[in-house]
C-alpha cells in the first residue's frame, strides 16, 4: 500500500527535519534507497525545481517526491504527512508559551533568542546576496573589482529599495516587477 507508506515515511521526515527544508534531504535519499520510488538523479532534478519555484523548499520537495512516487494523491499524502508533526508539536509548544509568557525564564530565553533570530536572518541575507548581486567566479577570473559586483543587479536593488521606502507596496509587486525586468534584460547573462 504505497499511499500509506508514503504518508508514514513523510510523517517521519517531518518529525526529524529540524532547521529548514534542506535538512530533509538525507531522509529523502534514504527513502529512495529503501523503496525505489524515484532515483537519485530524479531527486537532484526535484531539488533544483523545488528551489526555483514559490513555496517553502521542504514542502515543495515533499509534494514533488509524493507526486513522482504515486501521482496527485501521493503528493497530497506526502505533504500532509510532512506537516502533521509540525502541527502537533508547535501546538503543544505554543500552549506552553502562552501559559508561561510572563515567566522570567521564558522572558529571558526570548531576550537572547530574538537577537539570534535576527543574526540568522542576516546570515541568510548574505547567502542570497552572494548568488544574486555578487559574481565571485568572474572576479577570480579577471581580478577586476568592478567584476565582483553586478552593476545591473545593484541598480535594480536600489530601485526596489526606493520604491519600497516611497510607496510601501505589497512585496508581490516588487517581486513581479523584478521578474519582468529580469526577463526583459536577460538578467542571467548580466549577473
Amino acid at each position, binding site marked *: 500500500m504505497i499511499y500509506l507508506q508514503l504518508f508514514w515515511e513523510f510523517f517521519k521526515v517531518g518529525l526529524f*527535519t*529540524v*532547521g*529548514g527544508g534542506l535538512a530533509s534531504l538525507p531522509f529523502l535519499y534514504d527513502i529512495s534507497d529503501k523503496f525505489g520510488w524515484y532515483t537519485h538523479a530524479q531527486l537532484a532534478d526535484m531539488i533544483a525545481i*523545488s*528551489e*526555483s*519555484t*514559490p*513555496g*517553502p*523548499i*521542504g*514542502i*515543495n520537495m515533499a509534494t514533488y517526491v509524493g*507526486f513522482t512516487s504515486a501521482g496527485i494523491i501521493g*503528493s497530497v499524502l506526502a*505533504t500532509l504527512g510532512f*506537516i502533521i508533526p*509540525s*502541527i502537533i508539536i*508547535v*501546538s503543544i*509548544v*505554543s500552549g506552553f*508559551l502562552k501559559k508561561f509568557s510572563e515567566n*522570567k525564564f521564558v522572558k*529571558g*530565553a*526570548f*531576550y*537572547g*533568542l*530574538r*537577537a539570534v*533570530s*535576527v543574526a*540568522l*536572518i*542576516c*546570515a*541568510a*541575507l548574505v547567502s*542570497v546576496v552572494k548568488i*544574486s*548581486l555578487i559574481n565571485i567566479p568572474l572576479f577570480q577570473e579577471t581580478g577586476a573589482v568592478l567584476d565582483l559586483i553586478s552593476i545591473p543587479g545593484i541598480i535594480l536593488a536600489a530601485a*526596489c*529599495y526606493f520604491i519600497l*521606502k516611497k510607496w510601501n507596496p505589497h512585496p508581490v509587486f516588487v*517581486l513581479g516587477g*523584478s*521578474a519582468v525586468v*529580469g*526577463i526583459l*534584460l*536577460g*538578467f*542571467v547573462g*548580466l*549577473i
Partner: protein
Amino acid sequence: MKELLELFLAFARIGGLTFGGGYAMLPMLQREVVENKGWATEAELMDYYAVGQCIPGVIAVNTAVFVGNKVKGLIGAIAASLGVVAPSLVIIVAIAAFIQSFSELEIVQNAFAGIRVAVCVLIFTAVVKLFKKAIIDKFTFALFAVVFLLSIFVDVSPIIFVVAAAVLGIIVHVFFLKGGKAK
C-alpha cells in the same frame, strides 16, 4: 468560519510568494500577519522564528501553526498550515505533470535572477525592522555579532546557536537584569 478562511488565504498568499526558503517569507509575514491583520506583533513573529528553528518541521509551516494557533486554536493552526502548503501542491503538481525542464527554461532563469535581487532588498528592509526591536543593549548586540559572523564563516547548525542563546538569555535576564537593560 470567516477567520479560518482569512487564515487560509493569508497563508496561501505567503506560501505562494515565498521564493527560496523560510527566511524569505519574512517580508510577506510582516505585511500580512503584522501590518494587515494584526494577528501578531513583530516581537512575537521573532519568537516564532526562533522557536520554529529548533523544533521539528520547516520554519514556514511552524510559523503558520504558531500564528494560526494564536488566532483560532488548533483549527486555526490547521487552516494556516494548509494555506501555506496549498500553492506548493498546485504549482509543483502542474510543473511535474507538464513542464519537465522547468528550471532550465531561459525565461524562468532570467525571471528568477531578477526575483532574487528583489528578495535581497525585501529581506533587508524586513530585518532592519526586527533589528531595532531585538538588539536593545550591549548583550544582545554582542550575541547578534557573534552568531552572525559564526554562521557566515563556520558551518554550524543553527540549533546550537538557538539553544545557547536561550540559555545565555536566561542567565543574563534572571541574574544580571533587574527589569532594565544589560550594562
